[in-house]
């Protein structure tokens, strides 16, 4: 449904935009209906930038984003409106997503004014109650309240309900549970699971690996704007290949294992993969043209090599160097 290909984003920074910050490099991924894809990365990995580009809140510098075959990076004003009927976003801080001086109902009213001007009051009310029911909120508890009277979890679910009013097909969920308490977090995650069951595609942006793992079908691991590894959730979590993914998984605080236990396990894997680069090994074995999954500017040498190879069915991994300007550990 959503296909991102060789997406690039360069921010101009410094005085008068004199220097470039390459926030997203040649990122390719796709989201299908009824599937949750997690974009996992630490701060500065470009995960939110990708989410914002999908929502057309930021322009991309290169590459394409297609939704059901249409390129959405060049939509005009009217076409964008139609696009937003199908694609909506929910963001990290529910408290600042609402205007504190108006009742939460206003959020729905503005939506009605711009998208459903001809729907009658009664029909709208019914639609609204249905959407609130879908996120397991009681309309009586919610409508007519001010944002400060509701909890973070309730507000976050309201925002999802708002998106559902539009018959959306894709939801971009950018860190939607980082601000919530542990006991309500899981409710929102379960809601995402339920929406997935109803055929919605969800791009779930997060830095928290245990949450990304709980609900997603596939994960994309980002590091400094580059996809270093992606594949089915179980495959990536059980057998992380890229050094960055392995570091990341070894740093996650687990509830059932201490860091020492995780590290002991990880050191065996590191010993096995030390000094190797599965990406270049695969390329050498297959020849360049066969192995490349993304279209890569291959002529300019390893520094630009941001493609992925399929190590196991559906499990892709990129060159084992970490930062873009580093050398490949295998020296290839």
């Amino acid at each position: 449904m959503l296909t991102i290909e060789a997406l690039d984003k360069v921010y101009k920074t410094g005085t008068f935009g004199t220097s470039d910050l390459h926030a997203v490099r040649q990122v390719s991924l796709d989201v299908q209906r009824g599937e949750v894809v997690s974009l996992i990365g630490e701060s500065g990995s470009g995960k939110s930038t990708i989410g914002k580009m999908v929502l057309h809140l930021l322009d991309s510098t290169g590459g394409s984003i297609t939704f059901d075959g249409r390129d959405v990076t060049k939509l005009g004003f009217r076409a964008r409106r139609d696009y937003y009927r199908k694609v909506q976003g929910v963001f990290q801080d529910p408290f600042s997503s609402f205007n504190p001086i108006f009742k939460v109902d206003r959020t729905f009213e503005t939506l009605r004014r711009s998208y459903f001007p001809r729907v009658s009051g009664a029909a709208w009310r019914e639609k609204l109650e249905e959407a609130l029911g879908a996120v397991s909120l009681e309309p009586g508890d919610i409508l007519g309240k001010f944002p400060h009277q509701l909890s973070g979890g309730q507000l976050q679910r309201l925002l999802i309900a708002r998106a559902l009013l539009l018959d959306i097909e894709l939801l971009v969920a950018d860190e939607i549970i980082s601000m919530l308490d542990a006991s309500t977090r899981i409710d929102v995650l379960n809601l995402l699971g339920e929406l997935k069951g109803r055929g919605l595609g969800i791009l779930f942006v997060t830095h928290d690996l245990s949450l990304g793992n709980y609900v997603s079908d596939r994960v994309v691991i980002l590091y400094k704007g580059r996809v270093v590894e992606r594949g089915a959730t179980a495959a990536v979590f059980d057998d992380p290949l890229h050094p960055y993914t392995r570091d990341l998984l070894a740093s996650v605080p687990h509830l059932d294992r201490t860091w020492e236990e995780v590290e002991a396990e990880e050191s065996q894997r590191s010993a096995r993969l030390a000094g190797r680069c599965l990406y270049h090994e695969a390329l050498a074995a297959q020849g360049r043209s066969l192995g490349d999954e993304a279209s890569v500017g291959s002529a300019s040498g390893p520094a630009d090599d941001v493609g992925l190879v399929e190590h196991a069915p559906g499990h892709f991994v990129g060159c084992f160097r970490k930062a873009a300007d580093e050398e490949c550990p295998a020296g290839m």
Partner: protein
Amino acid sequence: MSLSVTDLRVHYRTLRGDVKALDGVTFEVADGEIMGIAGESGCGKTTLGKALIRLDTRMKHAGGTVALDGEKLPIADDGAMRRHRYREVSLIPQYAMSAMNPTRKIGRMIRDLLAAHNVRYTDVLPELERRLELVGLDAEVLKRYPIELSGGMKQRVVLVLSTLLNPSLLIGDEVTSALDVSSQKAVARALVEFRDHGFVRSMIVITHDISVLFQVADTILVMYAGHLAEKAPARTIIDEPLHPYTKMLIGALPKVGDRYEEQQLEGIEGRPPSLLDPPAGCRFRARCPLAHDKCAEAPPFREVAEGHQVACWAVS
């Protein structure tokens, strides 16, 4: 016994009455113990941390005592507490790393801080440099501005400077939050190391992230709506919690490996009660699956096994 808190009550004054943020809290922290405090927003964990060092103008000491190393801390007396602050009790407040003076180099800022406590910078400089090295920072950072350091580096600088005078007790409020997992691990490791080196005798680590506590803390104290719910060794809290709230809280945390399709975890229905006029009895009663008539009476925080205290009628 390093820290002992008895029946501590701290209220916030508001126009609509007192918010009973801490309502009768009794616990002890042993020498060399790292105690983690876990709980959801508004449960009083930050208030507890702050009450041990300084009550701000909105906070009112409504009763109870705090003793550190056998000596009573005058927590309600702002002036008298000054002598104890930083030297005996030190606090890393929330967002400490963002509170560093952006116009001062870090070394200069530490010099100012020490001067305020009548300590000469040059006297402690060798120790300062040694400790910076211990947490993986170059002594060069003293010549840098805060903006030049990453979040994890700043948080480690804050840790070093707040423990420079070897306090008896360090309170770290959300010190690992808002950091990437790799820096989180480095900071958490540094906390344990500082205890092991004896720079700090005991520590209270406040966070909403229980999995971090499991990695660093010896014991975990779970709070709910201004009351204590349970205190036990970290592994016991995770593996064999007794209080229904702790059970539900741990049950709501997905472990790496839990999948939505295989096993759906459940959240906790409802919200904590308002602390403006909290209900009598057990505060968790309204959300508790085990609640019965007896719960209208507040359960005592009682020891059920060695080092394991619970406040619940269904357990004790």
